[in-house]
């Protein structure tokens, strides 16, 4: 069983992991699985956190990558289709992007290489500033601006082909 400190850590941070995963993936079932995966990984390999000063920023990064993996491997797409067919939609007030925008974003994320896809989620879903993204990604603010220019360019080219 996890010790009390890990259980406390989980209680404090799991809600924000679930909230962000739901915003990125668009459904609760996938978001809960991301919560499980993220904390299981941290429980099994606590050393992966040691070089970072704040657990929140570490979890932002890990959660983002877990969500990107799901978007890329298509599990989330299938789940979204199932959810639309059988379940009530997520309350719009709790979702930063409407379903159509989220679907378009997922299409784009599948085409974008790293770190463009990560930066895209931080900027367009989390609404983080260039400075915050730079700290999370580990690059300069100017580089974040360049990456976001490339993301916008990719988005325009995708729209042109649709």
């Amino acid at each position, binding site marked *: *069983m*996890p010790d009390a400190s*890990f*259980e406390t850590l*989980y*209680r*404090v*941070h*799991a*809600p*924000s992991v*679930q*909230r*962000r995963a739901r*915003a990125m993936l668009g459904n*609760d*079932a996938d978001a*809960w*699985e991301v*919560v*499980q995966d993220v*904390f*299981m990984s941290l*429980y*099994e390999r606590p050393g992966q956190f040691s070089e970072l000063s*704040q*657990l*929140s*920023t570490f979890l*932002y990064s890990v959660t983002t990558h877990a969500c990107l993996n799901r978007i890329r491997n298509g599990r989330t797409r299938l789940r979204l289709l199932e959810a639309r067919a059988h379940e009530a939609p997520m309350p719009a*007030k*709790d979702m*930063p*992007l409407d379903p159509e*925008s989220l679907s*378009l*974003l997922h299409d*784009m994320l599948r085409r974008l290489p790293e770190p463009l896809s990560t930066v895209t989620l931080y*900027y*367009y*879903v*989390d*609404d*983080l*500033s260039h400075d*915050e993204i730079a700290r999370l990604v580990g690059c300069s603010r100017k580089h974040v601006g360049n990456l976001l220019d490339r*993301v*916008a360019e990719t*988005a325009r080219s995708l*729209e042109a082909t649709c």
Partner: protein
Amino acid sequence: MLKRSRPELSDGCISDLMLDQLRAEEMPARAAAAVLAHLQTCPRCQERKLTLDRQTGEIAAQLPAFVPRGAATGRTDPSRGRSFARSHRGWLSAVMVAACALLVAWPDALEDSARRYVTRSKGSPSLYFYVKRGDHVFEGADGQKVMPGDQLRFLVTPQSYTYVAILGRTADARTSLYYPQRDAVQAMDPHGVRTPLDAASELDDVLSDETIYAVFCSHPPAIDQLQAQLARGGGLHDTGDCDVRQLSLHKVAQP
């Protein structure tokens, strides 16, 4: 067209990441103070914080205990790939059954539970508090664990009321007056914005659970009578035309 989900944010506004860090007590004191100062003046960020607090509360209410894979059966990996949502479906069902039983058998308990819920709907006064522990400042919640030496600062949204008194009663029947700390209560401008009270209290070394009562009135409350009522026991539920909010603190020893 790709758009940010919150295009209205300005440069000085607070991101969700910062609000998460504030809630997780990870923010250095200076940064926390800047965030709290911004929250006092920015309706957009106040609204965003309320939204995140609500969502966090809803998710936390569904959060199952963390169980490592294999812990229950001793097998190495019995539930890999198993949906968390599916895995706590039984737990949710048990909660629903318990809630139904509570509804039928213990209506008083439900009523008491509702009365103890701190954050009310728009239009009702509310009580909040922040804890300063060393260099860290974080927002407290009902049932918050606090420690000797922590400093508490209360905030209220008085709504239509102009006076507030904040008192506490510990499990061993000691009473405290947190606000006002001067001779007389100060009149506030009635409004729905969080108002920090001009007093902070440092917690003593006695380890005990404590219930905090905020009594909102349209007239200066009779502090002596409230303290006497609290000392007699039973809480502060019958205060005439005043409105009472309460929350609990759990004081534990420093690690």
